[in-house]
């Protein structure tokens, strides 16, 4: 399902909140079978974290176009997705951006590249990316982003990588905004369940609980910020791909040796 076609708040009902097959007390076994991705329900992944189209160096779908009018303080909209308020909200200097790089992205790159090395490190990236509650993106997610967009294999990203990363993040912000039905700025248990379901995953409520325990701040109503949401979804996709690769018979079941298991997980999870 493409995110731009997903209903916003009129989301489709999810009767499948009962545990899938294999769990104690589970209901019907899922249909095995004729349709692709059956035991996983994954289907083709929605845009933002799919595989890059052939020829495109970076992941994600087509860029959503220009960033739009920057509100005061930043290029991204209102309560949702403003980066650190700062001095760079104004129009970028013309003519300096490398070919193919959006001038705003270039201007932002220059601000974030505090040591003027021409590359952005994890630490510098942390300064650039914020959640809706103004907390910086956590280390894990920044690392993930760098690894995704680092074509130089140096652990840092150049201006092209950064530009692609910004587009990528913007797509995620939109998706996050859709799933955040009550517009609280973070994603709650039920919103997370809904998100997984809409993405085509058929995962148990226990799984969502586990993720909240692992990723959310301790509180009576734990919820997940954008950075952790991105991290979760990307990891889920990656591990699902890894599992699928081994499950050639498409039965939702794989026999793994210990070393294989470690390799599979370690190469995808770290």
């Amino acid at each position, binding site marked *: 399902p493409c995110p731009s076609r997903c209903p916003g708040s009129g989301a489709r009902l999810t009767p499948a909140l009962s545990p899938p097959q294999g769990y104690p007390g589970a209901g019907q076994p899922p249909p095995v079978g004729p349709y692709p991705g059956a035991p996983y329900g994954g289907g083709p992944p929605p845009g933002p974290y799919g595989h890059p189209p052939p020829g495109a160096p970076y992941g994600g779908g087509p860029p959503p176009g220009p960033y739009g009018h920057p509100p005061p303080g930043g290029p991204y909209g209102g309560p949702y997705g403003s980066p650190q308020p700062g001095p760079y909200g104004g129009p970028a200097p013309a003519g300096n951006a490398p070919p193919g790089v959006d001038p705003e992205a270039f201007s932002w790159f220059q601000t974030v590249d505090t040591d003027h090395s021409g590359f952005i490190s994890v630490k510098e990236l942390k300064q650039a990316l914020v959640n809706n509650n103004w907390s910086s993106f956590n280390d894990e997610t920044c690392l993930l982003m760098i690894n995704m967009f680092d074509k130089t294999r140096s652990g840092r990203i150049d201006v092209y990588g950064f530009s692609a990363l910004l587009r990528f993040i913007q797509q995620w912000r939109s998706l996050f905004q859709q799933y955040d039905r009550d517009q609280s700025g973070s994603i709650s248990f039920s919103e997370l369940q809904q998100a997984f379901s809409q993405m085509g995953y058929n*995962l148990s409520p226990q*799984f969502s609980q*586990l993720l909240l325990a692992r990723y959310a701040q301790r509180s009576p109503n734990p919820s997940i910020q954008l950075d952790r949401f991105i991290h979760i979804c990307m990891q889920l996709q990656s591990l699902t791909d890894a599992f699928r690769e081994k499950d050639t018979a498409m039965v939702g079941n794989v*026999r*793994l040796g210990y070393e294989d298991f470690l390799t599979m997980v370690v190469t995808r*999870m*770290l």
Partner: protein
Amino acid sequence: YGGAPGGPAFPGQAQDPLYGYFAAVGGQDGQIDADELQRCLTQSGIAGSYKPFNLETCRLMISMLDRDMSGTLGFNEFKELWAVVNGWKQHFVSFDSDGSGTVDRQELEKALMTMGFRLSPQAVTAITKRYSTQGKIAFDDYIACCVKLRALTECFRRRDTTQQGFVNFHYDDFIQCVMSI
């Protein structure tokens, strides 16, 4: 002893030197969270001459022993953690031949193998890539790595009912067990 809120729960606990560190940071509930663990470990000097642990590593350490999924450790769990981390530290020190507080890829590989983790070259590459700065892995990151490997190993072992080194994973179970670390 006993009875007083926040006081020792059993005779002898107060004499345990570890209890001093624990009580100094723990609240009235006798539980410590990741922040408090970080302070506690730093004060105890377990990191020795190495840098103190970062918060994410502390969170990982708690999750390793946090059986009630509370996100906190009680004193007994803390003691267990202490013993495990000390063991890992001795191991790290034995491979840190120049005492720099870091190990390189080969030393890391040897250290992990001798701990019993069977890692393919790709796995070692992934680990080194993730945890090294300029080809060197610091003590804190080594611990984070050990915690993750240990958790994954536990997850696998618990399901290996015939103890043959093979597990049949259902998709959901695989995802859940791996992503909860």
